[in-house]
C-alpha cells in the first residue's frame, strides 16, 4: 500500500471522527444553550473540538485548524470559568459550531471554505471582552491575530517551558523564532552540557541528547570527569559528567533549543557561537554574559506567561526550576465517562460480502429443504439448521444497521437557521435517535427529512404573536421521532402549530386544477393534496421551504425508497407528517412472476392489483400494442418478454395469463402480462453493476430459493418505455 493511499485512508477515518466529534459538540452545546452547564458537558465539547483541531493540523487543513483553535481557546476559557458560562454564551458557541461544521465539510471537500470572518470576530470578541484579570498584567495576543497563524510553525516547539532564566525575559521576544540569520553569524557552536541530578528523572537519558547532538554533526571535544566519584560512591542517577562539544555553525539555534528540550531545567546548558558576538537573541544588549552571549536551552517562546518572573540579569548563567503550577482542574473533567460503546470499524464491502455468503447459506438451506422428504428433514435436523441460518442472516443485516441519529444530526442546525430566518421560536424535541436502520436508508432520508422540518417550522408553526393571541406558548414545539414497527421504520415530524387550513387547501387545489370543484373530498384527501405535484398554499411562497415543491419532493423521495407519507392535522393544534419506510433497501418485498420460462420480480410497492382477464378485456390497439379495460379506464398492457425483445415461443392468450397492474411513481400505470405468479416474498437485492454495469429496465437481481437468478423489474423505467413506442429494450435470443 502506498503511503499516500494509507494517509488518505487515515484521513478518511479522521473525517469520520470529525463527524462524531461534531455530533458530540453539538449535543453538548445545545444542552449548554438550554442551561445545562456542567463541567462534564463543557469538557466533552472541548475535547471534541480539540480532537478536530489536532487532526486538522495533522492533515494540513489550515482554515479548519485556525478556526478550531480559536474556538477551542474560547471553550478552554469557558472551562476555566474565565468566560461566564451563560446560555447566551451557549448560543454564541452554537453559531460558532455551525461555522466549524462548515469548515469540516470544506476540509472533506464537500463545500467551499466558509467565510468565517464574522464567526472568528465573535469568538475573538469573547476572548477579548471576557479576558481574565490575570491577562491584564501581560498583554494577551491581539485578538485580531489569533495564535493559530503561528501555531503550525510551533510544530517543533517541543519542551517544557516553566523555567526561570537568568535573562531579561521582558525584552526577550521569542528568540527561538527570532534568531537573526545571514548576518555573518555562523561561527561554530561551542556547547557545554552538564546534566543535573534530576536530569535522569522521568525516564530521561542525557546521554541520548549527546548522541543526538553527534547525529547533528557535533564532536565531543572534552568530557570533564572531575566530579566523577569513586565507583562505590557513584549514584547511577546522578549526573557527574560535563561535556564540551563543537558543532558546525550551519546548525540553527532553534535546532539546539529543541535538542535540549527535554533536559531537566536545573542542568547546565550553555551554547554560544565561537568567534562571534551576536547571539540568537534579537536584543543582544539585554544579555549580560562573561565572554560571549549565551543562550540557554530553556524554551523562551512564551514571554507573556505571567508565572515566569522577570529576573534581572546577573552576569552568570543560572537556571532554576520554576515552582510547580497549581494542578487544580475542574472537577470531573478528566473522569467524564463517554457513553461511546466499544466499536470496530469494518469496510462496508466486507459486510456486504458476509451478507452474500449468508444469503447463499439460506438458499442452500432451502434447496435441501426442497430435496429432502419431511422425515429426512427432521432426521438431519434441517429445521434447526434453517433457524440458525435465519438468525445469522438477521444478525448480519443488523450489522449494516446504524442509529438514525446520523440522519437526525443535521436537524438542530436547520432548526436554528430557520428560527433566525423566520423570527419564530422553536423548541425541538427529538426521540428515538437510537433507532437502527439500514445504512442505505440513512443515506437517503436526509433530504425528505430536511423538507419536512422546514415545512413544519415555515408553514406549520405560527409567529410568536399569533401564538400568544391564540393562547399558546410563544415558543412552538417540533417533535422529531423515530421508531421501528415490524419491518418498517416510522419517522414523524409533528408541530403544535395552526394545523392545515383545509378550506384554503381545497380552494387552492381547485384553483390549480388539481381536483375538480365538485369532487367530494374527505379531510384526509385534502391533507394529502399538500403533497400533490405543483401544489402551494402559502400566500407568498417563502424562500425557505417553497411549499409545494418541498412536500411534493418528500413524497417522491419517500416513495422511491419504497415507503409512504401519512399526514394528520388538527386545526389549531398542529400537523404531523409521518414517513413509513422499509428498514432496509437491501431487502425488497417482491412478487415473483414467470413469463416465457424466465422469472422476474415485481417490487410489491408498485403492485396495485393482479387480474385474470375476462375474454375481451384485453384489447389490441395495433398488432403490437394492447390495453386492458380496467373498470372503464384503459391501461396499456405489455409482456416483459416483448419489452425486452425476448422471443416468445410459447405465447399464451390473455385469458390464460395474468395481468399485474403496476403503478410507477412518475409515469402512471402499466399492465404487465405474465404467465403465472410464483411467489411473494422478501428478497435480497443484488446490484448488477457490482460485476457488470446497470442495465436499463432492471433495478437489480435476486437469488431465488433454488439458487437461480431472477431479475428485478424497474417499473418506472418500464412504464416510461412502454409509453414511448420507440424505446425498446432488447434482450438477446435464448438460442445463442
Amino acid at each position, binding site marked *: 500500500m502506498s503511503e499516500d493511499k494509507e494517509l488518505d485512508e487515515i484521513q478518511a477515518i479522521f473525517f469520520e471522527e470529525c463527524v462524531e466529534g461534531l455530533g458530540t459538540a453539538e449535543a453538548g452545546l445545545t444542552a449548554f444553550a438550554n442551561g445545562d452547564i456542567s463541567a462534564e458537558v463543557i469538557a466533552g465539547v472541548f475535547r471534541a473540538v480539540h480532537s478536530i483541531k*489536532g487532526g486538522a493540523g495533522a492533515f494540513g487543513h489550515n482554515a479548519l485548524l485556525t478556526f478550531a483553535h480559536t474556538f477551542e481557546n474560547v471553550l478552554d476559557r469557558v472551562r476555566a470559568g474565565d468566560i461566564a458560562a451563560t446560555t447566551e454564551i451557549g448560543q454564541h458557541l452554537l453559531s460558532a459550531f455551525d461555522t466549524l461544521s462548515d469548515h469540516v465539510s470544506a476540509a472533506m471537500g464537500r463545500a467551499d471554505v466558509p467565510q468565517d470572518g464574522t464567526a472568528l470576530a465573535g469568538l475573538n470578541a469573547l476572548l477579548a471582552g471576557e479576558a481574565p484579570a490575570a491577562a491584564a498584567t501581560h498583554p494577551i495576543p491581539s485578538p485580531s491575530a489569533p495564535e493559530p497563524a503561528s501555531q503550525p510553525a510551533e510544530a517543533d516547539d517541543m519542551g517544557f517551558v516553566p523555567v526561570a532564566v537568568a535573562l531579561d525575559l521582558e525584552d526577550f521576544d521569542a528568540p527561538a523564532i527570532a534568531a537573526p540569520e545571514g548576518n555573518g553569524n555562523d561561527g561554530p557552536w561551542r556547547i557545554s552540557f552538564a546534566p543535573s541530578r534530576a536530569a535522569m528523572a522521568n525516564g530521561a537519558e542525557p546521554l541520548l541528547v549527546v548522541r543526538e547532538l553527534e547525529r547533528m554533526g557535533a564532536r565531543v571535544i572534552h568530557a570533564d570527569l572531575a566530579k566523577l566519584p569513586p565507583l562505590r560512591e557513584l549514584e547511577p542517577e546522578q549526573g557527574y559528567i560535563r561535556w564540551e562539544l563543537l558543532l558546525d555553525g550551519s546548525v540553527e539555534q532553534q535546532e539546539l533549543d529543541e535538542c535540549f528540550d527535554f533536559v531537566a531545567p536545573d542542568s547546565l546548558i550553555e551554547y554560544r557561537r565561537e568567534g562571534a558576538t551576536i547571539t540568537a537573541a534579537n536584543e543582544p544588549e539585554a544579555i549580560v554574559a562573561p565572554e560571549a552571549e549565551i543562550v540557554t536551552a530553556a524554551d523562551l517562546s512564551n514571554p507573556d506567561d505571567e508565572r515566569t518572573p522577570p529576573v534581572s540579569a546577573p552576569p552568570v548563567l543560572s537556571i532554576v526550576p520554576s515552582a510547580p503550577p497549581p494542578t487544580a482542574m475542574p472537577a470531573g473533567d478528566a473522569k467524564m465517562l463517554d457513553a461511546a460503546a466499544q466499536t470496530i470499524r469494518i469496510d462496508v464491502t466486507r459486510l456486504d460480502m458476509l451478507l452474500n455468503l449468508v444469503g447463499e447459506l439460506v438458499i442452500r438451506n432451502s434447496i435441501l429443504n426442497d430435496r429432502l422428504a419431511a422425515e429426512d428433514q427432521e432426521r438431519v435436523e434441517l429445521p434447526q439448521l434453517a433457524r440458525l441460518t435465519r438468525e445469522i442472516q438477521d444478525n448480519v443485516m443488523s450489522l449494516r444497521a446504524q442509529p438514525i441519529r446520523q440522519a437526525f444530526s443535521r436537524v438542530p442546525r436547520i432548526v436554528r437557521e430557520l428560527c433566525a430566518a423566520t423570527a419564530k421560536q422553536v423548541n425541538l424535541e427529538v426521540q428515538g435517535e437510537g433507532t437502527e436502520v439500514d445504512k442505505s436508508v440513512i443515506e437517503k432520508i436526509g433530504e425528505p427529512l430536511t423538507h419536512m422540518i422546514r415545512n413544519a417550522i415555515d408553514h406549520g408553526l405560527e409567529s410568536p404573536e399569533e401564538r400568544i393571541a391564540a393562547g399558546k406558548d410563544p415558543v412552538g414545539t417540533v417533535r422529531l421521532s423515530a421508531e421501528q414497527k415490524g419491518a418498517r421504520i416510522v419517522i414523524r415530524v409533528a408541530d403544535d402549530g395552526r394545523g392545515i387550513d383545509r378550506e384554503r387547501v381545497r380552494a387552492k387545489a381547485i384553483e390549480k386544477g388539481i381536483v375538480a370543484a365538485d369532487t367530494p373530498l374527505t379531510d384526509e384527501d385534502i391533507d394529502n393534496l399538500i403533497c400533490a405535484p405543483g401544489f402551494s398554499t402559502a400566500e407568498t411562497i417563502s424562500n425557505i421551504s417553497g411549499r409545494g415543491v418541498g412536500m411534493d419532493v418528500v413524497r417522491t423521495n419517500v416513495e422511491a425508497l419504497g415507503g409512504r407519507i401519512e399526514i394528520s392535522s388538527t386545526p389549531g393544534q398542529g400537523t404531523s407528517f409521518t414517513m413509513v419506510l422499509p428498514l432496509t433497501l437491501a431487502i425488497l418485498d417482491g412478487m415473483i412472476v414467470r413469463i416465457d420460462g424466465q422469472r422476474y420480480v415485481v417490487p410489491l410497492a408498485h403492485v396495485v392489483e393482479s387480474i385474470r382477464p375476462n375474454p375481451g378485456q384485453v384489447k389490441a390497439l395495433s398488432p403490437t400494442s394492447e390495453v386492458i379495460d380496467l373498470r372503464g379506464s384503459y391501461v396499456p398492457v405489455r409482456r416483459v418478454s416483448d419489452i425486452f425483445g425476448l422471443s416468445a415461443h410459447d405465447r399464451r392468450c390473455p385469458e390464460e395469463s395474468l395481468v399485474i397492474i403496476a403503478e410507477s411513481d412518475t409515469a402512471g400505470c402499466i399492465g404487465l402480462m405474465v404467465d403465472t405468479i410464483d411467489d411473494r416474498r422478501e428478497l435480497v437485492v443484488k446490484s448488477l453493476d457490482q460485476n457488470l454495469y446497470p442495465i436499463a429496465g432492471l433495478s437489480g437481481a435476486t437469488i431465488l430459493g433454488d439458487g437461480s437468478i431472477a431479475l428485478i423489474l424497474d417499473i418506472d423505467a418500464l412504464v416510461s418505455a412502454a409509453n414511448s413506442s420507440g424505446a425498446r429494450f432488447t434482450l438477446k435470443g435464448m438460442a445463442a
Partner: protein
Amino acid sequence: MSKLILTVDDSASMRMLLKVSLTAQGYAIEGAEDGCKGLERMKELDPDLLITDINMPHMDGFELIEAVRALPEFRGTPILVLSTEFSDEKKSRARNAGATGWITKPFDAEKLGAAIRRVCS
C-alpha cells in the same frame, strides 16, 4: 530488535498517523484509545517508550502518566506527551506527573523521530 512504542490517543486517525510515521522509522507501534486501556497495555507490553495524548476520555494523559510512574517497573520508561495543547501550565503539570518530554501537535515525522531519539535509545 526494533523498539516498541505504545501510543495512547483517543483519535484512531492520530494513532494510525503515528503508526505510519513511526513504523517507517523502524519502530514497532502498539496503540490504545484511552488512559485506562493505555495503562493495561503498558503492563502487558512493557514498551520502550510511551507517547500519550492529554485530552482523552476515561483517564486522561496526566492520570495515565502518574499511574505509570507509580509502578516501579516503569520508573525509568521515557514518556512523551503529544498534544495540541501547549500551555506552560499543562506542560509543567505533565512534567510533575512524570513525563519526560512534550511534543506539540501537529507533529512532523522528522522532528518526532528526533524527539524520540533523545529519550529512547
